[in-house]
């Protein structure tokens, strides 16, 4: 899985939050994010932590172009996202890894990967520990850990500079969670991706390069 050296620019900002404020339409006075600014660089793995309901997933959805802020802006590669550019942003700049894997159940692992990339699926799956035999089975026949590996392979297969992970190890046992965490670290360090993981996992937090805590609508760097 050799990447273009262009993408291996550790330190280049993949995504930025610029004075972003967010509130639900139903409760406009309650600011989930309040003037948050942060830069997420390529080649770095970030862990965003905080108590449940503090707005971690909202922050991830803003970074991924799944939602829009009340004020401020989100930028990708230095360029702010317009409302009309969100779909393109999702298609070109980011890839998601979710707690529930979100694989298409009538497709094989190889076909799931092929949804996101034109690269050959089997080498990508082998890289995350899925055999060629398993790559052709139904995804429903795979274990939770294997399914999450397929989801990561699908994310890695895309050209996205940022992997946005929402509780990627939340449904997995300890050993499997550790293996998945390793894959994400490698994605950041070996492939130069910007990996942003919203997590409650101490192991994943421990292995992240930087840890950001979301507290009362503000993002505070812990490490």
């Amino acid at each position, binding site marked *: 899985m050799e990447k273009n050296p262009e993408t291996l620019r550790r330190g280049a900002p993949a995504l930025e939050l610029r004075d972003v404020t967010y509130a639900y339409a139903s409760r406009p006075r309650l600011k989930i994010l309040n003037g948050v600014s942060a830069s997420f660089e390529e080649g770095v793995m970030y862990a965003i932590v905080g108590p449940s309901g503090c707005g971690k*997933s909202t922050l991830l*959805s803003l970074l*991924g*172009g*799944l*939602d*829009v802020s009340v004020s401020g802006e989100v930028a990708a590669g230095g360029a702010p996202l317009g409302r009309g550019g*969100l*779909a393109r942003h*999702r*298609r*070109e700049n980011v*890839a*998601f890894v*979710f707690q*529930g894997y*979100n*694989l*298409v*159940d*009538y*497709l094989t692992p190889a*076909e799931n990967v*092929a*949804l*996101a990339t034109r690269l050959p699926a089997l080498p990508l799956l082998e890289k995350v520990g899925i055999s060629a035999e398993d790559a052709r089975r*139904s995804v429903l026949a795979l274990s939770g850990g294997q399914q999450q590996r397929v989801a990561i392979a*699908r994310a890695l297969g*895309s050209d996205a500079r940022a992997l946005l992970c*929402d509780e990627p190890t939340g449904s997995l046992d300890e050993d499997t969670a550790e293996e998945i965490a390793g894959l994400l670290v490698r994605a950041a360090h070996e492939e130069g991706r910007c990996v942003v993981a919203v997590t409650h996992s101490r192991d994943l937090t421990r292995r992240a390069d930087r840890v950001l805590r979301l507290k009362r609508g503000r993002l505070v760097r812990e490490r």
Partner: protein
Amino acid sequence: MPFPRRALLYLARKRGKTLTLLALLFVVAVLALTSWSIRGAAQTAQLNVRQALGGTFTVEPDSSNAANWGSSSVGTGSQITFQGEPLTADFVREVVEGVDGVRGGSGSVSNVLIPETTDGSAALELVEGADGDSSLAAAFAGDDFGRTVQFYAVSDSAFDSYFANGYLKLVEGEPITEDSGDGVLVSREFAEKNGLAVGDEFSVRRATVHAQMAGIDVEDTRTRVRVAGVFEPTAKSQADLSSWSMDNAIFGTISTLDHAREGTAEQGYDRVTFQVDDPAELGRITGEVEGLDALAGKGYLVSADTSDVDAVSAPLENMDRLVTALAAASVAVGAVVLYLVLSGRVRDRLHESGVLLSLGLTRASVVGQYLCEVLLVAAVAFALAVPASSLAAQTMGDALLGSASESVQTGGGDGGVSTADGVSTVSGDPFAPTFEVDGASFTDIEVEVGPGSVAALFGVGLAVSAGAVLLASLPLRRMGPREILSTLS
């Protein structure tokens, strides 16, 4: 991965859902196609009935008003004749040219004559009637009256009741018109029995008893005729005298009959029968005819009996309405059920839609996949429905049209073509042969699933299916990124 490939993979791997959709579309298609085909057959049957029973009306002297009639002595006896202006070929022309919707008409007057060789040296051989002679024949045993045949003087044989209604068919030569002179039409069997061909001549004369009653020499009534055409009866006929059957009938001009029976041309035709394009127009047409100067207040009766058409058409029209309602209901219910099923499927696949959208696929690609799946299944279901519908339509059509046909057989009036005993009198002449008619033949229709119906099924069916998918996909197309996220969490 292009959406058609995703659609194929879904259909292949979600076999249960695919087969359920296939079955639903198949049932709806069979229902729609079957009822549509039966409807077409019912309409064809109606058209056949209308054409077969004919839109006709007659004009004849009003026999119920004694003031129109007078008695005159002829030879040793007397005869009652109409006192008004005679019905002539000019009158027929005036009606045909002056009243919209009248296809044509023919005056008709008949009498009995004896066919013989040209010089009268020998009688021509007659076709034996299948049912033998009645008491009428016995009364004239030993007299040449038993060799009489019906001679019909017509102004245009093509529009004469027998020919226009299909009981007789001209198979050779030309029809008789007022300009045919000594031309006559004879049956093929009569012609073959006597070695006659088109162009050959023979003669006709009155029966001796008639000549004696008129006080004239029978030889003075002899007139030479020329075979102008040959006809064949299309149905079995029966007459009071076997020699009066249609196989021995001769059709000629009024001038020929006038030569044999002087005064016929002066008195004109007994009646004129007009054929109209559509029986439904008869009311208007007869109203206009009654208003013509040639008829108004001159003692003529214009009558159009539509009871047979009405009686025969009613059960078919009822069936047409029933089947049309069934077709409309099956399409409407099918469309609603299809929408409900497809919207349920799209709702069930909202999560999948969210996954695909989060991967950067466009909404058009996602909806295109669903559209592709449904249209592929619909195309297969419709293709399977065609032979199934043919079978169902023929079976159901036979049953329904058979039932309607029974009503046709028993529901006919008593003065027209189709009667309860299946006998037709065709013309108003009481001595005219009667025909056995087959009411079922009007509705003996092959119920076919035609290419038009199949094209309509594919056109409308695929459009309804596509519409249902697009409608069911509305929530997906309106779904914002936040909703996508919520489907994934």
